[in-house]
């Protein structure tokens, strides 16, 4: 076994895993927040994520076509794109809730789940339809911005690109912002109250419907931000891109304890790191017998193990059974 190699790539794998983990964390927030207030899995969240990515790529491509991409500072452009992507995804999430979930309040919990699956199918092909007409293509590529691709080499095997740093910094800022919003503001308190008990919250004068819409807005916006960052980091997107990251983020949310915001962040990071290490090391450690393709098995096995010992996830509190 090649020990210098195994140790040499360690920092790089750690970094790769962190970036992936932050991405998962951002998406997982959408799942976990919706679950917190409505107790159902919002399957359409992966499409909300994709719509964010598509809004981002459309703005960037438009800027590029107008020759404006080189003029403005890439960071400024990215900030604007990020905000608009968040806005679009957030509004879409609110609309989806209004149209497809609100009429189903109080129905057995599998009903909104199926509705969400329906929305997910619908949105996938709707994005494809729009892009097919608009650009006659639905595999779109984020334009390259040279500043973001500058790399700093620290050692032989570790180097960091500007865009990786952007992803990490942006994710951290947003996670911190959300944490502050939920825990330090009145609105956050109201959302938490609705999550705790809708009937009581409404008796306390909280507009439950508005808070639920707000939850979707925030969760959707986080998903949209993740979409833009995903596009910037990995470049190629298509209407079906969201499915796998969505599934993983959902897993991350459960891993951390679904309905729990810090849990989603932790779960995302743990899952991202697990995946990165499994994919990089499995083949090296087993002499090629098992390779990167086993990373999902590895991740899911760990998930099952963790859930056996902590049935409510890593940070999940022991919640009462739903009446």
């Amino acid at each position, binding site marked *: 076994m090649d020990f210098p190699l195994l140790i040499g790539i360690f920092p790089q794998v750690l970094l790769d895993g962190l970036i992936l983990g932050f991405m998962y964390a951002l998406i997982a927030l959408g799942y976990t927040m919706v679950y917190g207030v409505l107790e159902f899995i919002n399957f359409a969240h992966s499409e909300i994520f994709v719509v964010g990515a598509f809004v981002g790529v459309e703005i960037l491509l438009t800027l590029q076509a107008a020759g404006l991409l080189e003029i403005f500072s890439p960071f400024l452009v990215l900030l604007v794109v990020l905000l608009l992507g968040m806005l679009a995804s957030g509004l879409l999430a609110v609309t989806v809730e209004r149209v497809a979930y609100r009429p189903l309040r109080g*129905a057995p919990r599998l009903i*909104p789940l199926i509705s969400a699956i329906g929305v997910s199918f619908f949105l996938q092909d709707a994005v494809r339809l729009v892009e097919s007409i608009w650009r006659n293509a639905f595999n779109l590529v984020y334009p390259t911005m040279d500043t973001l691709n500058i790399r700093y080499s620290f050692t032989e095997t570790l180097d960091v690109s500007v865009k990786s740093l952007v992803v990490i910094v942006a994710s951290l800022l947003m996670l911190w912002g959300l944490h502050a919003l939920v825990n330090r503001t009145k609105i956050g308190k109201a959302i938490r109250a609705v999550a705790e008990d809708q009937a009581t919250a409404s008796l306390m004068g909280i507009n439950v419907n508005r808070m639920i819409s707000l939850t979707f807005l925030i969760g959707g916006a986080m998903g949209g931000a993740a979409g833009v960052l995903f596009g910037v980091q990995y470049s190629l997107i298509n209407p079906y891109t969201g499915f796998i990251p969505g599934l993983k983020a959902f897993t991350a949310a459960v891993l951390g304890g679904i309905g729990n915001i810090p849990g989603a962040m932790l779960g995302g990071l743990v899952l991202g790191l697990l995946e990165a290490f499994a994919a990089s090391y499995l083949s090296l450690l087993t002499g090629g017998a098992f390779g990167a393709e086993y990373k999902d098995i590895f991740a899911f096995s760990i998930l099952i193990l963790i859930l056996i010992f902590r049935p409510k996830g890593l940070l999940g509190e022991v919640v009462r059974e739903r009446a």
Partner: protein
Amino acid sequence: MITSLLSRPVPATILVIALLGITAYAVSHFPRSIVAFMLFQASILLLYFASMPAWLKGLLTAGALGVLMPVVGSINGYYLEIAIQVGIFVALALGLNIVVGLAGLLDLGYVAFFAVGAYTWAIFGSPQANQIFGGSAFPVPPAWFFVFLLLGVGVAASAGILLGLPVLRLHGDYLAIVTLGFGEVIRVLANNLDKPINFTNGPKGITPISRPPIFFDPALRALGIDPNPNVVYPLYLYFLVLLIVGVTILVNRRVEDSHVGRAWEAIREDQTAAQAMGVPLVRMKLMAFACGASFAGAVGVLFSAKQVFINPESFTFMESIGVLAMVILGGMGSIPGAILGATVVTVLNLQVLKGLSLWLNELRNAGVTIFGWSLANLPTQLEPAKYERMVFGLILVLMMIFRPQGILPAQRRHRELRDAAARPEN
């Protein structure tokens, strides 16, 4: 008007028999008309609603499915293929209905058990097993298919227990994600176990898989019928599927009203209360998993024999979601619901949406114009064939909003929802 007709036995019987006859005749007259076939399917559905003596209903159902359908199917083989796939999905939906509908355990990886069954026969019913054990003893003789049908049940049930054991403590959506993971694990394993030892041949898949022997071949010859395998096999497979579906329905109905079935429903409604009433949670949950899985295992065996070739592409997460949609669309916990849900989704997917696309294509080729605008100018981006999933998604959402209890809800669930609707706020 139809409702009042159907509620009176004599006119109902006459109406249903007449409809079955007319539509079957229509299919034989317009073998390519999907609408004729759909009307035929609709009249079988009508049979279910018609009120008539149970023996007569049974007789008519047997006649429609056992005689008319094969006749229709031999006129147009496509319909038989649809009927076989409908049967396969009906059995799957009934199996999942036990886990999700009765016991209330959300399973998002149900297709894993289907895969387990399919691979059980695929490996031993093809030369693939030689890769594992060496030599050239395999495939086993085709007659072993029937042994493997039982074996598939056993293996899948064991897999169900295997999955059930570690996750018994989990509730609701934690369980959902673990089953989802399990489904993915099985698929990824099937996709990757071509090394270090070649079990599944990876993405390249396994072929040729033996089909069950035509044991009634001499009988057919004695009757003076030349058994052309191209005609006989689809019919044979159709009757096998029918048999499995029949057994599944029988078991489902017996189980539903047994103490086990009641225990499952008790767990679904309130786990803590059920436990307090002395329902053994662990055993009952494991039984639900095993029971649901076993049906999938049996159809899996049949599926691999029907396809002659399998690879992991047939066992994706989307298939699990599809079966789940069938159960919920039909009405959770309801046997007729699961059957109808599976039928509707399969027919919608394989027949209606496809038929619509083909129909539009024909209109285009025929040069039809709408308000002076030629259909042939429709840009390729807008072709309906590409948006079948979008239509399906829309149908799912609309169904859930306007008929959340499913098409044919279980009676108990129906009452529950009405009560929930009567309450102002949850």
